[in-house]
């Protein structure tokens, strides 16, 4: 690992100022992706600003049909939270399937979203549920936030403070984890709110995306059979030693059907 300066921020304001003052600084919370990336010398920030201890960034609250989760809330907290299990059980389930127990004990929702790994789990929930990403500067709709491979709408000096999820009538997440790495080869988060059905696919492409044909079909009839005749466009999907584009397209459809089959409400 290259050298860097470690700074522990105690308030959101201080963290924002440190981030604005150092162009090559990175925020550190759980560090479950950032530290391995730095060890592999794929990142060499000048400063690490530790935001893990900032109280304003942590916590879970359900109020007025919305579930709010602080950016530094750990996966284990979301997975075990009685509040999340009651409001959006599919989200608690998703969190329980991220990485492994030690990773869930440290990794955070804000870190996962800011990193936007194409095989990460959380982006699919945020996009499907139409959540709002609240930063230290503004509010960003999920549809605008994710911009492909490790890219987001976050600008310089901007940090995620919390994520606000509208509580759906029904939701479910299903993924096919790679047997060795555990990362999603394809994952599908399906949710229904009013007449609106949204399907977000992770793992299969260079970034999370909505499968709009499936959304339209499921909006007419919310049953696995509705997507039977459809297929995910394979053109821009990932292709590697683990699977072809067509394999991933099919897997995304299978995961969507399974998710529809286990839709649950609060």
């Amino acid at each position, binding site marked *: *690992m290259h050298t860097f300066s470690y700074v522990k921020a105690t308030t959101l304001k201080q963290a924002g100022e440190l981030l604005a003052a150092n162009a090559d600084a990175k925020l*550190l919370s759980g560090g479950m992706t950032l530290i391995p990336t730095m*060890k592999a010398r794929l990142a060499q920030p000048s400063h690490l600003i530790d935001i*893990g201890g900032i109280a304003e960034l942590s916590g879970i609250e359900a109020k007025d049909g919305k579930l709010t989760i602080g950016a530094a809330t750990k996966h284990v907290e979301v997975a075990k939270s009685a509040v999340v299990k009651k409001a959006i059980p599919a989200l608690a389930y998703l969190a329980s399937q991220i990485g492994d*127990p*030690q990773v869930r004990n440290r990794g955070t929702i804000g870190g996962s979203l800011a990193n936007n790994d194409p095989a990460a789990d959380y982006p699919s929930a945020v996009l499907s549920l139409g959540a709002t990403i609240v930063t230290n500067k503004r509010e960003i709709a999920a549809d605008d936030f994710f911009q492909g491979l490790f890219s987001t709408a976050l600008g310089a000096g901007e940090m995620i403070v919390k994520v606000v999820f509208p509580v759906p009538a029904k939701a479910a997440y299903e993924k096919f984890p790679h047997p060795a790495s555990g990362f999603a080869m394809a994952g599908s988060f399906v949710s229904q709110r009013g007449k609106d059905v949204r399907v977000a696919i992770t793992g299969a492409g260079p970034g999370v995306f909505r499968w709009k044909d499936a959304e339209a079909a499921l909006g007419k009839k919310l049953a696995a059979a509705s997507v039977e005749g459809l297929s995910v466009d394979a053109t821009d999907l990932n292709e590697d030693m683990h699977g072809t584009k067509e394999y991933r397209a099919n897997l995304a459809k299978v995961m969507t059907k399974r998710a529809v089959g286990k839709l649950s409400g609060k």
Partner: protein
Amino acid sequence: MAKVELKINGKAHSYDVEDRTLLVNLIRDHAQLTGTHVGCDTSQCGACTVHMNGVAVKSCTVLAVQASGADITTIEGMAKGDKLHPVQQAFTECHALQCGFCTPGMIMAVTGFLKDNPKPTDEEIYHGLEGNICRCTGYINIVKAVKQASKAMAK
């Protein structure tokens, strides 16, 4: 340089380390507790698992400075004198190790897992130990040991 003050196995320590020093290196090189192993060094194998404030973490993926003020338990802190921790005892009795390299991390992970899930099913054990790899593939006896420890700890 950073000043790291922490407790390891109940004993207070203070070290001046580089900001980039990993917790596992502080434990092994500075505190000279070499029971915690470095296997893959890429947060996959779990050999470096220790407890930080009672929670299992991979110490190769935590900065030492992030552990400042924390209470760390390593494999050396599990036995009470000559009396092994029930998980250690179960690993011994079930022969839940072959080469033994993954064992300290495995025992720390199992102990963390059983806190949350004192009466696990086989499926729950598989899911709960996904963060630890036994390169000898001695999983059958490890699962047996988890079940035996669970029974012993329920008494």
